[in-house]
């Protein structure tokens, strides 16, 4: 037996503890979300009905099952608030991801063209803001965008506007916040593929007479598609469920689904509806999630 195979056996045992942990704290909780999404709202603590009582035996379990209802899901489909919230989440996520790609690509491209030693520095510079708190970064923008904030002061001083512009509680503020927070997630995968690209390919296209835009569009961009895919998924999926940024920067007249879920849970104390909203959100994200998993797996397990 090769030493690689001998090494593999104890390595497999290393999986036991994290496996059990993730089963208990990641997988099993979804069963509870599903169960409670099928329960009735009740004014109680915890605020739902029926409660499974495994000690009560099989008959009690059957009655509990009989009491399950899909009312919460019916509510989600019939009430405009929820339908609009899902649609708005998807629209915001698509728009923001497109903006991120548009802004992130030139930066990643610039990084990949730096001399090798500078590339490492640039990478650290892009990663560091990701380490500083998310909430703090949103708060920094509230400082800048408020009524008498820096942005309005600059615009007034340059006589670009005659009176302060309302930035906070608008979609523009929300998009600024999202782009700002997710930019490193878009740049890094793009940079990773662009940096690995063989520069001779672009040179050859140029030598054969292609103008720069054609070199980019016919050679560089198609070759960077795996990075584009990774960056898009890495941004799109969490943005759909985003809560903090729209809550602090966007107006309150149209909510994203993460906000409705939060509201149902914390303000209305309607746990069953919040759970049903989470299940629907999960189903909406299932396809992008599976794509992302495949990509991540390929990158970590075969890519070396």
């Amino acid at each position, binding site marked *: 037996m090769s030493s690689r195979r001998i090494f593999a*056996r104890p390595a497999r045992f290393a999986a036991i503890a994290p496996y059990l942990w993730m089963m208990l*704290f990641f997988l099993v909780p979804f069963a509870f979300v599903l169960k409670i999404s099928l329960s009735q709202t009740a004014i109680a603590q915890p605020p739902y009905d029926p409660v499974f009582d495994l000690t009560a035996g099989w008959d009690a379990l059957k009655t509990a099952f009989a009491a399950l209802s899909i009312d919460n899901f019916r509510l989600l489909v019939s009430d405009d608030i929820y339908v609009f919230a899902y649609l708005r989440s998807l629209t915001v996520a698509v728009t923001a991801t497109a903006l991120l790609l548009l802004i992130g690509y030139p930066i990643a491209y610039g990084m990949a063209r730096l001399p090798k030693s500078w590339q490492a520095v640039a990478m650290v510079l892009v990663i560091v803001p990701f380490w500083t708190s998310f909430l703090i970064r949103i*708060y920094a923008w509230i400082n800048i965008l408020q009524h008498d904030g820096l942005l309005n002061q600059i615009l007034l001083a340059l006589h670009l506007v005659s009176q302060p512009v309302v930035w906070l509680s608008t979609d523009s503020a929300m998009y600024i916040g999202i782009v700002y927070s997710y930019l490193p997630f878009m740049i890094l995968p793009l940079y990773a593929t662009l940096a690995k690209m063989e520069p001779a390919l672009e040179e050859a296209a140029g030598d054969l007479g292609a103008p720069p835009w054609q070199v980019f569009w016919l050679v560089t961009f198609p070759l960077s598609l795996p990075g584009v895919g990774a960056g898009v998924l890495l941004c799109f999926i969490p943005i759909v469920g985003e809560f903090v940024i729209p809550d602090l920067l966007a107006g309150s007249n149209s909510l994203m689904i993460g906000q409705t879920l939060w509201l149902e849970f914390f303000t209305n104390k309607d746990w069953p509806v919040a759970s049903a909203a989470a299940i629907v959100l999960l189903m909406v994200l299932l396809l992008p999630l599976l794509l992302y998993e495949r990509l991540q797996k390929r990158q970590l397990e075969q890519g070396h």
Partner: protein
Amino acid sequence: MRKALRLSRFNIASLALGLAFLYLPILILVIYSFNASRLVTVWGGWSLRWYHEFFNDRAMIDAAWMSLRVAVSSATIATLLGTLAAVALSRGERFRGRTLFSGMLYAPLVMPEVITGLSLLLLFVALNAERGFWTVTIAHTTLTMCFVAVVVQSRLGSLDRSLEEAAMDLGCDPVRAFLSVTLPLIAPAIIAGWMLAFTLSLDDLVIASFTTGPGSATLPIRIYSEVRLGVKPEINAICTLVIALIAVVIVIASLASKLSSSQGESAAPL
């Protein structure tokens, strides 16, 4: 041979603008934390007044202490579990339930936090667990161990496996070979993983809001409830302190990885 292509003016401009966009807001926030004026927008000279205010704010201090304790304990457990998971995935070859395992590890990286938070809370309620320090710690461990696993796994993947195989050919048993050859080589990634888990936990608002109980708010929860009411210079001061703490953490992480990875390629912080 990879040779550098010439940098166009467009490349330089997009890099400069991109970095300015990433750093200016944070810089402005830090500068205004030293503003003597109560009005956030009027510059009233340098002052440490808001830091003083923060250190006299009992509720904020309690929340900061709670956050630090949660961050240290969850990062430590997460580093242990995440490293084990990474070893199993990159050295365990094929085993039963492997696809499910890797699926469970990669999904939380992008899963919207409202879903993770809600599902964990429902579990804790069903288990009748008292919500507070431990429930938040468990929740943060679940999220951050996945990040640790990815960081360590990518380091293990780029490692020359013939090194540990040589140790075994020379008579080491697998555990010994792992401890004396593999572990020192992946140590920088493990340290980076701990730091990442620590900062992610310190930063989290959504999952902590779901899983904490009354009376044990974390720092982001306190900051969030203040920020909703508007900009306050004291918040700028707290944010600056958090940024300083994280900066120290990053410096230690990069020094540690530089010290112990001089023999291999350096571990990326992410």
